[in-house]
Each structure stands twice: as C-alpha cells, then as structure tokens.
C-alpha cells in the first residue's frame, strides 16, 4: 500500500524485496514485486546509502545538509517528491508503523 509520505514517517530501504546493480555508472534498483527499474544518481545514491538505516525525512535532510550545501527547508522540498517516488515504486518501506 502506498500513501503520501509525511515528515514524521520513518523510512528504510526495502532490502528484502530489492535488487540493485550498476549499469553505465548508474546505481539501479528494482523492486521484485513491481519489476520496474529505478535509477539512483548522485544525491540519490547518498540517500540510498543513508536509508540502509531508518530515517525520518528531517533526520535524512540533516545528514544531507551537512554533505551538500543546502538549507534543510529546501532539502525537504526537493527530497520529499523523490522519496515519494521511491516509496511508490516499492523501494522504500515505513519502519515501525
């Protein structure tokens, strides 16, 4: 079931149902369930690494803000739709209900 993510959701990589590989230098994920491939470039790869551990969108953005020169508010605005897509593709799960 997918739904709209909110800032307090705790997200984690859906490793059990997930395959990844690198093609043409691009990290590619695929949900076994859905079969669609998803590319994870640049910041996406960093987000992917971070989400090996559960994160809220806020805690994720704090990490990204220290890696990249970006304000937390702008980070949230840009990262949320991206996380929503990953979630819709079945690549991210919600941790702890």
């Amino acid at each position, binding site marked *: 079931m997918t739904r709209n993510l909110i800032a307090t959701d705790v997200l984690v990589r859906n490793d059990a149902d997930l395959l990844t590989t690198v093609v043409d230098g691009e990290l590619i994920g695929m949900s076994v369930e859905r*079969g669609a*491939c998803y590319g994870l470039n640049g910041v996406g790869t960093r987000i992917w690494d971070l989400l090996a551990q559960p994160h809220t969108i806020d805690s994720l953005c704090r990490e990204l803000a220290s890696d990249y020169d970006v304000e937390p508010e702008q980070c949230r605005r840009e990262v949320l739709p991206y996380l929503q897509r990953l979630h819709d593709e079945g690549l991210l799960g919600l941790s702890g209900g």
Partner: protein
Amino acid sequence: MPPGSLFSCFDFLLRSDIPLTELDAAGAGDTRPVVPVRLGSVPESTHGMDSPAMGLRVCGEDALLTVEQVGRYLVRGDREIVIEPAAGSTERSIRLFLLGSALGILCHRRGLMPLHANAVIAGGDAFAFAGPSGAGKSTLASHFVRAGYPVLCDDVCVIAFAADGTPLAWPGLRRLKLWDDAAQALGHDREKLERVVEGFHKYQIPLPPARMAEPVPLRRLYILGKAEDCAPGFRRLRGQEAMHAVIQHTYRGAYLRPLGLAQQNFRHAAMLLALAEAWEVHRAWGYDVFEREAAQIERHMQSAAARIAPQRRAS
C-alpha cells in the same frame, strides 16, 4: 520420424516424442545435455501450488502451465517437460506452446536469458530486435533474409553468458512467423505456407538450418518503435532506461516472479548491458516505406559490425 529424436535447442538438446520441425536435428556425437520432452499424465494441479498467474502454477520444482484447449505442460526443474494434450488439440498447437511458454520456463530455469526478440548475424556478431507484438520484428527479419544475413532466431533470442560474462546468442527456432499481409508483401506464396495456429492468418516461413550449433556474441539489442511521437532515428539507451528495456523484453517475464527467478534475470540484464548496447529505433510505418526504414536499420547495424567488437578488443 521415430519417437525420442534429438533436436538442437540452444545450449542443450531436446529428446522429444513429438517431431519438432522448427528445430534442427542434433548431429551424431553432440554432447550437449539432453532434456526429455514426453507425453504423459499431468495433474490439473498439485497440492500446495500457488494460484495460477497467466496459466502458470508453481510448486517447488514443478511448474504447471495450462493452455485451454491445447494441453497441460509440466516443467520439472530444469530437466524434463511432460505434456498432456487436451482432447481434440492438434500437434501443431501443442508444439506452439511447447516451443513458446514451456520452453521459456525451461530456459529461465536453466540459467539462460530468453529475450522476446529475433536476431541476425552481421560481421560475426548477433544483433537482436525486440518490440511489442506487431512492431514488425519478423517482417524486418524477413528483409534481412533476402539481404543475405543469416537469421539466428525468430521471436525468442536465447542468451547464455560465457565465463568472462560475454552475452552469447544461440541459434533458435528455424522459422519466421509472419502475418498474412507481411508474407505477401515480401513475396511469399501463402498457399504454400503452414499456418502458426489454425484459423489465424499468421504463417510460418521456414529458415535454412543454422550454420553451426554455436552461439554468437550479442552486440546490440534494438527496441523497435514507431515514429509517431518523435522523429525517426536511433537513440542509445543507458543506465536505468537500458535496464528497463532489457527486463521488459525478457521472454515470458511475467513468469519470473512465480518462478523465483526475478533476481537472476535482473543480474543477467546488467551482465548483458556490460558488453552489449541497447538502442531505441523510431521509424516511419507502413509497407510502402518499409524497405527504406529497413535499409536504415541495416546501415546502423553495419556501422557497428564494421568496428571491432569491444569484447574482442579487450582480449
């Protein structure tokens, strides 16, 4: 033909009770592993089987494919196919699904990667052509036959991977399936052709035997489309787009998940793209422009065939 004849089928042989006219007979002393195909009793379902997905039920090593009015096909592991024909079914339709879906399941299980594509040989390499049904794959292959290129396979292109990862395309079924209008436009006399399925205007054009029972390195996979929404031309697919295209054009890809082989196929797709290229082709449509469009694809393929293949440059 006596029962139990051996037929060349990719990197293995089929020993079949049913004569398989679409395959080459195996030569004496061929040492490829043998997979028997026999007629026998196949249960309607096995206790503990999954609910059917596209006619397929899987329980452990048993994969049971049910085709209404044709028969039931039981693929046991990677080592045997048992067929129970339905009452009134014809040998032709039994063969059609044996050499289609059932063989697809067997290939996936034997660690091969079947693509829904045909392929021709140019400059010693294989060039495969995929696309949705009706995209003109077989018509294009028929064009290549007349232009003098050996056709490696029609409809299903089976890829094996060498120890160094090179994707190798095996010779496949020795026929092209053409729709009525395509067969006529290309100068075939449909009165002399065998229909693929009774009542359908689709015909089998036999191909000459494969020159060798040997695979050929795959160089490119072309995805055929129409030039309705964009200009005609060629576009190289990379990364995610290329992976998506290869996975989408895997033969009987819907069976991968019930078979528990989605991961294998994902890995194979990445291996294929490490040494072969994926291209999207947009072209104008219709038999009046077909020759012109086919000639463009032929030139594009030849420009790659003329260059030294990357996997050979490395060695």
